[in-house]
Each structure stands twice: as structure tokens, then as C-alpha cells.
């Protein structure tokens, strides 16, 4: 159990590359935090700093109130699961799981008990005498989890633990990891570039890019109120659609306009957007924010041409040309549109996002998580 605090943490490598400039992050005790971002965004570096595998070159790291900057990895109460599992090839499964306890001088009887318990919980008891090379990917993943959880650490770190598994297994393991967090009652920090994993597992998501935190917030907040176009684009499948245009005010209503298109923005946006008529903006529309069943109403409708229909089993993706832009929407599979057809699609404007056209910052963001 530990609260983790990074204050203006910086990491610069000997070759001059700065992985992190000045990162501040406060992770609450027993929280499940996911660091999300593309490769090279500094999320793994952040995790390594917390683990003590790399040293901060500036700033501070605290566990609860203790400074950890100079504490080496083997003296920190952390456990970690790696993408490649990193099992010891020359040790049996049992010894792999027991190794961390042995190194920390636990009595033999307790080690035996804890290893057996962990093995039972992860359903790998029959494998205890095997060597890692005799196991499947999923089994290795479980051994790696077992090795971390027997330690009963204050901080549980995971570096893309599911990336090497196939899709079906990945979803099953997500559920298990969530369960594990629930029963272990300890702080989890989880690194991934998979937005679905982040949305499923996290209490809070930290979206990172080029060593800088873009946004911290609950999965709902990150998804519904992205701070900028980077965050908006990183979550959602298919990705969010953008339309460039202008703000316009008429009859006390604020509209988004592009060519013949005019969408009336919801009333709760007016406070932030008032008096900015003529400002070039980007409208963000998530793929699922069309309502194919409601009657098209003025100011909430996109008129355009269906350019492609892509069935994906449970539903279908529509390629939709509006005012010279190609958008993708996810609609139910019972909707029968043909390619080349001109249709009107009703849009859920209440969830539309408005970004500055040049900086990509959200004009709706109020600073709250």
C-alpha cells in the first residue's frame, strides 16, 4: 500500500535524449492508474523510474512521504510484470515464483505456502516443476503474474503485460487483472498503448506524449472530455472524426459551420464559446455519435454521400462524405445504406467536441479531470 508521487520528474539519458522533461503525477493508494500513449512517449520510462530500474536526473519521487530517488530497485517494495514475461529460463516455475521471496529472506515454510497459494489462484499448480520454455504464452504470463503477486508488494507495476498474447486471451486476462487488483488492494501502475485496455482497467488514465502528460482523468472523462485532439484521437475505435470549420452565432445560439453545413451546438457550451464567432475550429465527432433511427432535424443533421459500407459482424462502419471530408461512423447492422447513396444522418451534438483549429486544444476543457 503506497501513494506514489512524482514531482517535476525528469529523465535525460547520457546521449542527451530527454525521455521526460518535468513530469508531476500523484497516484493515490490502492488506485489503478494506466499510463497510456504511443511508443516513445515516456510511459515505460516513468514506470522504470517508479520501479527504481532507472534513476531520475531531476525532480523527486515519493512513496507515501519517503523520498525514493536514491533507493535502488531491490530495496523498494515493488513487483513488476514485463511484456516479455522475463522468466528465468534456468529455473523451474516454482523457483521463478519463489525467487523474489528467497532473495528477501522469507522463511522456507512461508515461501512454500505463498507459492502454492499463488499457483492455485492462477491455476498453474500442475506446471510448477516445468521450465519456462515448456509453457505456452498464456501460461508464462500467469507465472509472471504469480511471481509478482506472491511478493504482496506495496506497488504493483505492469509494463504492457498483455501485448504478447492473442486477442481472445488478452480480454480474459484483462478481467483477471482487474480481479487481482480488487483482491490485492494495492496500488497498480499499468503501462499500455492499447486504449481498450486502459478504458477497461483504469481508475484513472494518464495520457502521455513525448514525455509530457496530456491529460489525467477517469476513463469517462478522458473519453468524453478530451483536452486536445491528441487525446481525442488516441481513444476510440474507429477514431474520432474531425471537421474543420468556423464558429458562428445566430439568434443566441452557437453553431459550427462549414460550407452549407451548420450544426447547432448544445446550450451548455455557449458559456465557453460565446463571443468567438468566426474563430476557426475543429469539430470532433466520435464514430458512434450518429443516431440512425431518429428523424433528422435542422441543426443536428449531416447531409452527405455514403462512400463505403464496411460490415464488422456486430455492426458496420459507414464511410461518409460531408462537405469534402471523409468521416467514419459506426452504425447498427440493420441499417441498409448502399454505396453512393445520398442520406441525412442525425448527429448527437451534445457530445460533439470543439478544438482550436491550429493548436488542437479543446475549447470546452474547464481544467477539471
Amino acid at each position, binding site marked *: 500500500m503506497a501513494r506514489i508521487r512524482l514531482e517535476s520528474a525528469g529523465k535525460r*539519458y*547520457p546521449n542527451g535524449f530527454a525521455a521526460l522533461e518535468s513530469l508531476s503525477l500523484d497516484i493515490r493508494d490502492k488506485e489503478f492508474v494506466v499510463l497510456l500513449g504511443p511508443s516513445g512517449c515516456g510511459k515505460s520510462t516513468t514506470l*522504470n523510474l517508479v*520501479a*527504481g*530500474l532507472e534513476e531520475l536526473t531531476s525532480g523527486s519521487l515519493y512513496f507515501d512521504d519517503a523520498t525514493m530517488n536514491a533507493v*535502488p*530497485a*531491490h530495496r523498494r517494495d*515493488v*513487483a*513488476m510484470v*514485463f*511484456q*516479455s*514475461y*522475463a*522468466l*528465468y*529460463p*534456468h529455473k523451474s516455475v516454482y523457483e521463478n515464483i519463489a*525467487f*523474489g521471496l528467497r*532473495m*528477501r529472506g522469507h522463511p522456507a515454510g512461508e515461501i512454500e505456502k505463498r507459492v502454492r497459494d499463488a499457483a492455485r489462484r492462477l491455476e498453474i499448480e500442475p506446471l510448477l516443476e516445468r521450465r519456462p520454455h515448456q509453457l505456452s504464452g498464456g501460461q508464462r504470463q500467469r507465472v509472471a503474474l504469480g*511471481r509478482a503477486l506472491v*511478493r504482496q508488494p506495496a506497488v504493483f*507495476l505492469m509494463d504492457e503485460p498483455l501485448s504478447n498474447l492473442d486477442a481472445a486471451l488478452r480480454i480474459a486476462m484483462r478481467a483477471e487483472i482487474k480481479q487481482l487488483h480488487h483482491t490485492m488492494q494495492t496500488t497498480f501502475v499499468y503501462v499500455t498503448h492499447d486504449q481498450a485496455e486502459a478504458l477497461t482497467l483504469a481508475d484513472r488514465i494518464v495520457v502521455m506524449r513525448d514525455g509530457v502528460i496530456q491529460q489525467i482523468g477517469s476513463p469517462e472523462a478522458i473519453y468524453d472530455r478530451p483536452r486536445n485532439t491528441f487525446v481525442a484521437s488516441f481513444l476510440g475505435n474507429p477514431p474520432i472524426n474531425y471537421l474543420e470549420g468556423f464558429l458562428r452565432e445566430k439568434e443566441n445560439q452557437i453553431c459550427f459551420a462549414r460550407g452549407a453545413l451548420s450544426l447547432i451546438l448544445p446550450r451548455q457550451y455557449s458559456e465557453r464559446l460565446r463571443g468567438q464567432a468566426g474563430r476557426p475550429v475543429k469539430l470532433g465527432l466520435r464514430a458512434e455519435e450518429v443516431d440512425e433511427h431518429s428523424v433528422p432535424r435542422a441543426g443536428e443533421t449531416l447531409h452527405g454521400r455514403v462512400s463505403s459500407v464496411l460490415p464488422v459482424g456486430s455492426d458496420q462502419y459507414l464511410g461518409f462524405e460531408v462537405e469534402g471530408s471523409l468521416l467514419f461512423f459506426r452504425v447498427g447492422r440493420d441499417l441498409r445504406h448502399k454505396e453512393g447513396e445520398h442520406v441525412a444522418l442525425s448527429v448527437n451534438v451534445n457530445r460533439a467536441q470543439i478544438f482550436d483549429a491550429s493548436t488542437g486544444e479543446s475549447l470546452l476543457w474547464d481544467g477539471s479531470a
Partner: protein
Amino acid sequence: MKRIFLFCASTVFLVYVLAPVAWLVSSSVQQEAEITSRPPHWIPREPTLENFEAIFAAKEKQVTYETRRQGDPATGGYIPSTARNLVPAMWNSLIVAVAVVILNLVVSVPAAYAMAKIRFVGRSASIYFMLTTRVIPDIALVVPFFFFIHKLGLLDHLGSLVITYLAITVPFGVFILVGYFESLPDELDKAARIDGCSRLQTLLRVYLPLAVPSLVAVVLFTFLTSWNEFLLALMFTQTPASQTMPIIVAAFTSDFTISFSFINAAGVLAVIPPVILAVVFERYIVSGLTAGAVKG
């Protein structure tokens, strides 16, 4: 057709490599008269162990020009005046070789681990610098080495050989091990440290057990280099107290006369320790050498 060619070629190669060894072993159990007979007898007519007995018996004898015919009936009467130095010289060689092997491992294992797994300024430069020292021929180093050893007061002392052989063998040892350690995933290193190992424990408990093939390669290379080395031993040792076997065996040819049977017997003794090492570690040798070579 291709197979036949390959078979013939390997046979020729095998004969080329093994024939001298076979002749060495065969003639070591022949008497002087039989060795010099024509045509040579590949299979001894009257095998004898007298040559070997002579080596061990020579230990107590002071051989002079006058007494040289008394010692050894097998050699037809010839026994080199330095013969009694052979057994002590083998001990010297063994002591030097074992000391170099152990010290080499003590130095090159941690060095290789650091170079492979710890990012520090000048890391790759240090690896290349170390290898560069090895493209300089030993003969060019003899004089500086000599002054160095002289300053240390280690002339005619086994220590001089241990120091200089380490200078020769450590770079290769580090090179082979760096290549192997680099081929092991970094995450293994991280996992061990998270599991509670210090850097040293990580090295000893996780990396060393995995690096056995490479360690064997380093041990063999180091042992053979030290066991065979001639030039530096010739320069730095003057008396039987510190002379190694290659020096003593070489001296057999420049004595009052040449005793083929005696030299051959000494040669067989010289081959035994490396052969034992090779047999013991046989299954690791090939994999260890390539592991270092593929990545590095």
C-alpha cells in the same frame, strides 16, 4: 557426387590435422632407434613407457656432459641437461594458467555485465578500445612489458606471466561475454533487480548460470593461451624457478644433442591438460564460441 567430394575433403583435412598428433603419441612410446628408423613405424613394434619414466626420474639427477648417458636406456643414452626441469615447469605452467583463468573470470565477467547491461558514458568506446589493444602484435609489446615488469621487480617471477597473460586474454574474455550478455534480454536483468537482487546478485544468480557456454569458451581460450605462450615467457623468465613448459621443451632441442623420444614424451604430457579440459566441456564449446561471435 557432392557427398563423395565432401567425404574426401574432410578425410584429407582430418589426416592433415591428426597425423602429427598421432605421430607424437606413437613416437612417445617408441625407443630412439625405432623413431629414427626408415620407413617410420606408425604402430610401435616394441611399445615402452621408458620415455615417461625418464622424465619423472630425471627430476633427481644432475645431468652433465659426463653423466648424460647414465639416465635413460630408452633414449639410446641421450637425456637433455634441462630434463629435470620439465616436471617443475609443468607445475609452473599449470599455476600460471589456472591463476590467469581465475583472475580473468573475476575481471571480465563483471566488466562484461556492466558493458552489456548498464548504460554509461563511453560504454561502446571502452569496448572498442579494449579490442583495439588486441590488434597490436605481442612482439611490439614485449619491450614496454619488459620495462613494466622490471619496474615491478617481477622479472623471473611467475607473477610477471600472470600479469601479461591477463593483458592478452581479458579483452577477448570480455568481448565474448559482452556478446553473450547482450543477447540475454534486458528485462531479465530488470526482473532480477525487482525480485530483490543487487547488481552483483543479478550477475551471480541469473546471468552466470545462463552464461555457462560462454564461460567455458573463455576458460578454454584463456587456459590454452597461457599454457602455450612462448614469447613473453622467454623474455621474462630466466631460471627454472619460473620457466614454463614451452620454454623447457624448446630447450631440449638446443642441448648437447636432440632426443626425439624425450621431446615426444614431453609433448604428450603437454597435450594432456588441454585435452582433459576439452573433453570435460565438449558439449559447451561450439555453442559458447558462436554465442559470442554472432552478436558483439
